[in-house]
């Protein structure tokens, strides 16, 4: 008799092996772009005085008054007791020549408290305000002063109003912003 013993042991090994893990596609994982960088360089605005403002010869009266200097070298009495005289000084509109870049536009600021002082120890003064600006062949501007360069240049014509006191306030003599006690007219030019 044959006996068969079979012993078999087996460990069920029907295991499914799962391999997991993410693998990103090797293709489009980065992207590069070229970016343009730009700036415009402009020359600083420069200004030179072409002509000093000259109100010419005036005669204060018994009451205060004003003298108005135009942008075309003419003057007139604004108000009050001052009269004009045709003396040795020819009235002249102020001229400032501006330089910069291209056809850029700019604004003009006038300093306040412009004061002319008598060239002696006496504290006799007159003030100037209400500036009138004419840029190249443009029209007269009395506010929001602005202009445009043409090929990097512009000519500013400047007029204004001189406040004159009585003959006691303003005795005869030369009055100028450059004298001690005077305060200059300063223009501030700014690119827009």
């Amino acid at each position, binding site marked *: 008799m044959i006996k068969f013993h079979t012993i078999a042991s087996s460990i069920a090994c029907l295991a499914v092996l799962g*391999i997991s893990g993410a693998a990103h596609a090797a293709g489009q994982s980065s992207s*590069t*772009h070229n*970016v*343009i*960088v*730009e700036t415009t360089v402009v*020359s*600083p605005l420069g200004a030179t005085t072409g002509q000093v403002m000259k109100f010419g010869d005036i005669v204060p009266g018994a009451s205060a008054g004003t003298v108005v200097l135009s942008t075309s070298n003419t003057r007139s009495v604004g108000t009050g007791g001052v009269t004009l005289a045709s003396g040795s000084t020819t009235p002249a509109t102020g001229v400032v020549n501006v330089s910069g870049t291209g056809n*850029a536009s700019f604004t003009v600021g006038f300093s306040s408290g412009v004061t002319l002082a008598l060239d002696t120890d006496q504290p006799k003064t007159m003030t100037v305000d209400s500036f009138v600006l004419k840029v190249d062949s443009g029209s007269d501007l009395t506010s929001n002063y602005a202009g445009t360069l043409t090929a990097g240049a512009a000519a500013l014509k400047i007029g204004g109003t001189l406040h004159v006191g009585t003959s006691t306030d303003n005795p005869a003599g030369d009055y100028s912003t450059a004298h001690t006690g005077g305060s200059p007219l300063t223009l501030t030019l700014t690119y827009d």
Partner: protein
Amino acid sequence: MCNFFRYVLILLGGLIVLALPYAARAQSTSASATAIVATALQVSKTADFNFGRIVPGATVGTVLLSTSGTRSQTGGVTLGNAGSTSAAAFSVSGENNATFTVTFSGGTLSDGASPTNHTMSVSAFVVKMSGGTDQLANYAGTLSGAGTQTFAVGGTLSVGTTASTPAGTYTTSNSGGTAVSVTVAYN
């Protein structure tokens, strides 16, 4: 993983040797693999850098362009009209919620003048992801649940004196210039 089976043949004094191999069960294993194909990363530029109008001075200086397109300066350069001032801007799309990095290279602006051009450089980039804060280095971002993101880039322009920087339009695309190269990559 082991599996074994053995079979034992017992012979009992028989003259007959019978070999009865144990039925070998078919051993099968199967392996499956999965891979995620990531959505391709796409970047498009929606704005270039523009530092607007500047006025060099007697000493060197810098113009800082913020990620919101505003400018400030140091040193001898003056800011002119803002004009077309703009921070650079990018739009990114790719795998939902993926993280990415941003790197920069290059950045020379030239006026393209001949025979010798004049240059200035841009550096120290600042990156701001939409809804994020300004990053000064190790620029990084995360795509939204919809796989998108936008970011703005500012930087610093180094400006010479009026002597070395005459008037003109300076751009990276002029002869003598080098574009800023922006690379966006999945982590």
